[in-house]
């Protein structure tokens, strides 16, 4: 990476690396495919049926069609990128089209129509700067040929297709998760095609059509010598070709693919890298999945589009539960309430919510309430000339986005906006604005986190190691959602009840009030996980003399690791905010309080680095 030409520096201060300042992923070339290719292998050998985008033969180095190309002609498009030492240097990077255009139809057919033993699995092949990914699929049963009994002509042998492969070509440096998504799409299309082939020989018929047109064009070219692309002629005549083109176009633009193979089977797919974008960067699918596995019943679902728009996008045969959920959900309702109102099991709510989030139709937030504290997201686009600013003024005439955003420069709770002299309509509009800003990832919500840290004892000489803090000692008590939550795997049992969940520590069983020996022992047990010194310090606090307060403190001890925010403790323990705040205040000499965003759902507002 040493530079050898320091003299040659551009004036506009761009460095050699033209990346954005954030080290998060960029959308664009790396997430779009370069080409889609359909090949088959059968009794007629390996054939390339269709490819898109097709070469513009006028720009091709040789104007001969693939068939007439001399097998000994040097392929020059790939050279020039490598020097003799094998170091690759991008002098003038080839356009995406050029990368794949350099491969003739015949060679693609050879390398992409694989042997049958690697069928049914992911196929990945990298050649210089292009990566091909697909899912080669075997067609086991030869199609049954219907021959009419009265047909006098001799039985013709129908050429049999053994396997086919729908391949996507990507840039070699595409992210592994993108490659894996493309493979997924290839597999889905393959399943649909395999099914339709068994049912009515759809693929064989389309293949026959495509090959016939290719032969026709080749013959024409031989006769009058003007090169044409057979694929251009295939498009209007073959539905499958149009489907593949549509898949490619959708992947390059919206990232949402919806095909109807043979006008019958639906294949739907979304590329998370195109859908989950904040600014110019995308949220990695693994991070998304991790977040979704960690959501809790006290979270809420915020739709990113209007209810009407969303319902209009659903297919006719979608699940009624999904429709009910969309109609019932709201930014102020948590998932548990949503389950009650929509009359669905909580687990089902989680699954549908995860599905909506995955498809980019909703995000997870903490339900709106007046005690929520919001602040500007570090990745918020606050530029005066952004499209967001324009949209905001259209949506809320008389208000401008930067002024509104400036109000959230310091963390502010919604309650602080309340003005008794204002009309209630103003307040409603404020809520709408906050929802609008949350949908566009402009705000993050701050939560209070508490950590137990006892002042070190003074009589010990400084050489002794401090006690490892409570967080490191208390084992992980799992307070997470049912582990059955995963994409696309429904479970039958519903573990969560609709009332306040009972946790392992069964803190709810502690009898309220009274200084009974049972309670005293409970408190002692809970405090037993602390070191002697810690226990002493806590017991010396004036508030600890009150058995009620001490008991509450002991009961909540395991939350004081800095990983559970105030609202979570409130939800789990069925306590009021004021109760907790008073407790924190009483024991403030051993607690350290800070506030920051909830790492589980902050991914939706700002991608993590």
């Amino acid at each position, binding site marked *: *990476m040493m530079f050898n030409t320091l003299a040659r*520096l551009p004036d506009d*201060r761009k460095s050699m690396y033209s990346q954005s300042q954030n080290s998060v992923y960029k959308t664009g070339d790396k997430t779009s495919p370069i080409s889609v290719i359909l090949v088959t292998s059968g009794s007629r050998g390996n054939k390339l049926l269709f490819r898109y985008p097709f070469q513009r033969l006028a720009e091709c180095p040789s104007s001969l069609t693939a068939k007439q190309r001399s097998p000994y002609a040097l392929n020059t498009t790939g050279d020039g990128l490598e020097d003799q030492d094998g170091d690759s240097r991008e002098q003038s990077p080839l356009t995406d089209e050029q990368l794949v255009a350099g491969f003739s139809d015949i*060679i693609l057919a050879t*390398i992409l129509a694989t042997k049958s033993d690697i069928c049914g699995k992911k196929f990945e092949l990298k050649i210089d700067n292009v990566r091909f990914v697909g899912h080669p699929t075997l067609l086991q049963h030869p199609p049954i040929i219907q021959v009419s009994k009265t047909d006098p002509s001799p039985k013709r042998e129908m050429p049999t297709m053994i396997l086919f492969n729908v391949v996507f070509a990507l840039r070699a440096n595409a992210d592994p998760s993108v490659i894996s998504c493309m493979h997924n799409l290839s597999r889905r299309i393959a399943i649909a095609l395999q099914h339709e082939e068994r049912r009515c020989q759809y693929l064989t018929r389309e293949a026959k059509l495509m090959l016939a047109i290719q032969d026709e064009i080749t013959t024409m070219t031989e006769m009058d010598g003007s090169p044409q692309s057979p694929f251009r002629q295939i498009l209007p005549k073959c539905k499958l070709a149009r489907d593949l083109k549509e898949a490619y176009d959708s992947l390059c633009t919206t990232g949402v693919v919806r095909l109807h193979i043979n006008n019958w089977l639906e294949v739907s797919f979304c590329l998370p890298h195109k859908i989950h974008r904040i600014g110019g960067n995308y949220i990695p699918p693994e991070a998304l999945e991790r977040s979704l596995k960690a959501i809790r019943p006290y979270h809420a679902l915020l739709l990113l589009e209007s209810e009407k728009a969303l319902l209009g996008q659903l297919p006719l045969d979608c699940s009624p539960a999904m429709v009910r959920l969309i109609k019932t959900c709201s930014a102020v309702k948590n998932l548990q309430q949503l389950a009650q109102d929509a009359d669905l099991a909580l687990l089902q709510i989680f699954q549908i919510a995860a599905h909506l989030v995955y498809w980019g139709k909703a995000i997870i937030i903490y339900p709106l309430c007046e005690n929520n504290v919001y602040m500007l997201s570090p990745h918020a686009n606050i*530029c*005066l000339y952004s499209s967001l600013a324009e949209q905001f003024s259209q949506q809320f005439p008389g208000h401008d986005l930067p002024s509104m*955003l*400036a109000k959230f420069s310091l963390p502010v709770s919604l309650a602080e906006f309340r003005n008794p002299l204002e009309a209630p309509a103003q307040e409603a509009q404020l809520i709408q604005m906050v929802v609008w800003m949350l949908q566009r990832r402009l705000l993050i919500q701050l939560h209070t986190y508490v950590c137990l840290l006892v002042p070190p004892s003074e009589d010990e000489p400084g050489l002794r190691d401090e006690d490892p803090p409570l967080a490191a000692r208390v084992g992980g008590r799992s307070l997470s959602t049912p582990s059955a939550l995963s994409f696309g795997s429904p479970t039958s049992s519903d573990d969560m009840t609709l009332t306040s969940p009972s946790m392992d520590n069964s803190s709810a069983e502690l009898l309220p009030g009274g200084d009974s020996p049972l309670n005293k022992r409970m408190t002692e047990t809970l405090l037993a996980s602390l070191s002697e010194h810690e226990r002493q310090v806590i017991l010396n606090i004036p508030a600890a003399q009150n058995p009620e307060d001490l008991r509450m403190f002991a009961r909540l001890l395991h939350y004081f690791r800095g990983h559970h925010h105030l609202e979570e403790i409130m939800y789990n323990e069925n306590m009021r905010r004021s109760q907790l705040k008073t407790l924190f205040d009483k024991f403030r000499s051993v607690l350290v309080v800070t506030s920051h965003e909830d790492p589980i759902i902050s991914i939706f507002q700002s991608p993590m680095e």
Partner: protein
Amino acid sequence: MGMTTRIECIFFSEFHPTLGPKITYQVPEEYISRELFDTVQVYIITKPELQNKLITVTAMGKKLIGCPVCIEHKKYSRNALLFNLGLVCDAQTNTCALEPIVKKLSGYLTTLELESGFISNEESKQKLLPILSTLLEELNATGACTLPIDESNTIHLKLIQLRKDPPIVQEYDVPVFTQCKDHFIKSQWDLTTQQILPYIDGFRHIQKISAEADVELNLVRIAVQNLLYYGVVTLVSIFQYSNVYCTTPKVQSLIDDKSVQDECLNYVTKQGQKRASLRDVFQLYCGLSPGTTVRDLCSRYSQQLQRVDERRLIQFGLMKSLIRRLQKYPVKVIRDERSRLPRLYTGCHSYDEICCKTGISYQELDERLENDPNIVVCWK
């Protein structure tokens, strides 16, 4: 170096005039099964169109990387010599770093064949087997290999791990060493970097380094970007007592992770003092919040700061992302028709950037903007 990219096998394959494509040598023996080779041979001994291309194929849980070579000459049976020297790894391995090696090897063998018929001569071809063994061993052990082939030819290979592209370095960024400066043999770096190294102290920003080291600004930016690429430095923001910071969820790692704890306490303790206590340091970090300047922190937590250097506290917090800086962005919201379009007050440029570009001080900028009713300031 070879840890993450382990080579399972090295093979030499060629097109035999009668037997067709076959594996002539492989180390370790029998690693590539007959089945596997049958499946992938079309990518190893290839049609002419694919020659001299780096081909990586994944099949049966393995990844094979090769570069097929074809040398045409009348002296060969079938008028051409086709061969491929490739590597095999596990399918999950990231093999980008191996590609230049495969390319180089194919180049070396081609040269050897053209110069002295190394491969077509049955005797000298046998030397390949010990060569493959040595390559496999050394590349896996140290990531590098230097191998004399005969009196005049030596192979030099090195595995270079590719790293992520670093971000653009701005003039108001501050580079800070991630390890002790003295660990590096400075004479290995280029002249520009050597000239600016003494000025990288975790407090000087790029513009200042450029002025004091007398090196052109863009050169400093590129040199620091290079250091960033190799993970030698990381970037933090300019330190001022008027700065505002806030905690991130990662601040909890100070409690959870003993190694971060130790590193932090060692880093932030004032010179010559007893090691600071975790509680004090954690309280200081948690004391940073929107609306609180470093100056405020110092006055509120003077007791905790007795053994802690606040500048290093902030520096460590930024380096490990325990805290983040809140920057001010002025936006001109109201303007009359006649005035010019705001160039810097658009919400895209922070105070740091504006002060750096225009040369005015923070306080001066503050005074100017506070008195302007058309400008709002956003913190983020």
